[in-house]
Every structure is written in C-alpha cells, then in structure tokens.
C-alpha cells in the first residue's frame, strides 16, 4: 500500500486512481470530524465534499516535509469548519433534531450485540449533545484528541496554536464535557 505522500505525487501526475484511494482512505476521518463539530449528518456530508474539493485544488501546495497528510487534511477540514461555524452561527439553533441523529451502525459495528449497539447509539447522541454545549475552541480540541485520536503535537499543527494552549483547551474541554454528560445522566465507567 502506497504512503499518502506517494499517492499525492501520483495525483499531481494526473493519476485518478491515486486520488480515489486517498479519498477512500480519509473520508471517514473527515466525515467524523465534520459530523462531531456540526452535529448534522447532511452538513457533515456537504462539508466533507467541500473539504476534498479544496484539497484537490490545493494538492500541489502540500509539502510532505511540513507534516503528515492526515494532519494537513485535518487542518484544512478544521479551517473550513471554523469558516462554516462563523457563517452559520445564526441558523444553528433552528436545525432539525432528526438530522442530528448520528449513525453508529457501520462496518465496525458488525459483531456487536444489538444491546451494545443500542448503548453506543445512545452514548453517541449524548456525546454529540454535550459537545454542542462546549465553546467551539474547546469542542474542536476535545474532538481532535478524544474522538479523532490525534497526538498533542498533531493538534498543535492543525490548530496552529502553542502546545500549552492545546493542553489547556483539551483539559478544560474534557472537564466541561464530563460535567455536561453527568448532568445528562451518564455515569462514569
């Protein structure tokens, strides 16, 4: 399997299958980031398309030396999410709740019992509702760290802020998230 940097070079030579492979490899990560940030499936889908369109147009500006492709992709996604957040701030409260329901069922859920899947579904909804109550700065830090699994250094590159600030935001975000989830009835494991 080719590394992302190799695939990018192949894309720049006009090889369509290489781009298709990059898209398949990273769509899930981008979609999840968009979904967790916006809380809306349709917005996440639109934003994911927008992210890849932007990536496709600016692929030549990607330099492997500046960091991994996933980090660059996440930074582009995050910047687009921030733009989107500013653009739609006023409309957010009027969104349909049905659109916000997450879809936990997927390939990874195969093999889990229906009870377990139902619990995951409930937890996913609660986490989404709790995230929506955090400020955007804390929300993005928690999503990147605890839902996307990025390291502190990667988050620093994505958000382009000092590592100390990253740590501080993650810390405050986690404490607030725990408070909100507790108030929603979730008990610590």
């Amino acid at each position, binding site marked *: 399997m080719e590394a992302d940097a190799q695939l990018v070079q192949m894309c720049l030579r006009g090889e369509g299958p290489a*781009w298709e492979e990059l*898209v398949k490899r990273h769509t899930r990560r981008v979609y999840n980031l968009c979904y967790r940030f916006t809380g809306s499936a349709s917005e996440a889908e639109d934003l994911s*398309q927008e992210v890849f369109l932007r990536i496709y147009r600016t692929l030549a500006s990607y330099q492997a030396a500046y960091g991994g492709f996933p980090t660059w992709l996440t930074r582009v996604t995050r910047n687009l999410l921030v733009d989107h957040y500013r653009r739609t701030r006023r409309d957010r409260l009027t969104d349909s709740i049905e659109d916000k329901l997450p*879809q936990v069922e997927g390939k990874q859920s195969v093999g889990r019992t229906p009870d377990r899947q139902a619990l*995951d579904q409930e937890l996913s909804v609660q986490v989404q509702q709790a995230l929506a109550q955090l400020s955007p700065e804390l929300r993005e830090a928690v999503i990147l760290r605890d839902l996307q699994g990025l390291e502190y250094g990667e988050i620093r590159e994505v958000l382009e802020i000092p590592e100390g600030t990253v740590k501080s935001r993650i810390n405050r975000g986690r404490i607030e998230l725990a408070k909100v989830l507790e108030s929603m009835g979730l008990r610590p*494991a």
Partner: protein
Amino acid sequence: MNWNCTQVEERLSDFLDAQLSPEERAEFSAHMATCPDCTRLVERVGGILQQVHQLEMLEPPPQLIGHILDGTLGPRGREKSRRGWLAWFPAIWQPRFAIGAAVAALSLVITFHALGASPARLKHADLNPVDLVRLANRHAHLVYARSARFVNDLRVVYEIQTRLRPEAQPAQEQQPPSPAPTEQQKSQGAPHPGRSANRVTVVMAFALVSGPVRSMR
C-alpha cells in the same frame, strides 16, 4: 512542594494521558490522597472519557465517496460508459433503424442458409478467423467452379445446336417447292424437318443444363 486543587485540575489531562513526569505524578497522587473533591473529579472525568474513547467512528453515508469523486474527477468512467450505452437506446428504437436491422439480420440468415451454415451445428472451432477464411475461400472456389462448368455446358449446347442446324437446312432445300399446304396438312401439323432437329437440341440442352443446376443445389 505540595500541589493545590487548581494545579491538579490544570494537569488533569496530563495525568489521564500519562504525560506527567514521575515527580509530577507523585505530587498529583499525594494531593488526591488528601482531597476527596479532586479524587472525585479525576474519577468522573476519567470514567466518562473512557466511555467516550469506546465510541467508534461513524460510518459516512455510502454515496459520499462517489459524490466526492464526481465533484473532483468529474463523472466517473463506469457511470459515463453506462450513460453512453443508454444514450444509444433512443436511436435503436427508431422504426427505420429497427427495420434496417431486421433486413440485415434476414440477409445474414439467407446468406448463411445458402452457404449451408447452421447456427445449431456451429462449433467453437468454426468461429476461429482462420477457419472462417478457409471456409469462405472454399465456398468461393466452389461457386466459381460450378459457374464455369455451367458456362461450359451452355457452350457445348450452343455448339451442338449450331452443328445440327446446317444438316437440317440442306434437307429443307432438296424438297421441291411445295404449294401452299392443304387445310388437312395444316390441321395435322405435318412434322417439319427443322423442327425435329430443334427438339433434339432442346432435349440435349435440357439434359446438359439440368445437370449443373442440380449439382448447384
């Protein structure tokens, strides 16, 4: 130095992510041992994060990858070719095209039948281009040979006809000029020497010509 509650709260994530140095960890644990509030906070946040970490990534909608590829690479080859094929259907359903296709198919059937080829007897080996060329070549030579034979036969018939005619002609001349035939002769239709020779020629020609015709079937 003993840590206070604020310090513990500030370094909570570092503790949960195992980012504290051994000294810092010792300070953190020492404070927790004496502060029930901080202990409870660490347990709450740690326990809830543990559940959040168990959450799986959501599965994107199945059509998303297709939409992204369509938006960047344009409509993909597979769909384009399918659309290309579908684009032919309206043209195919035109009556004149259908009639033309039917006539072409009928012509092929007649040609195959005339050549003695039957789809039921068709084997895989018959579709080999080399065999097809050989078969076509053989049929072309056979048709040529039969045509040549037919022309030769006709030529023989013509020669016999021309040789018989001079013999009949003198016999006709030796007869005295007879007066106009009587009514009885007219009604009986007296045999004419030239006419009998012609009849022989026709019979022979028929015998010769019918041979090749039968052989051509």
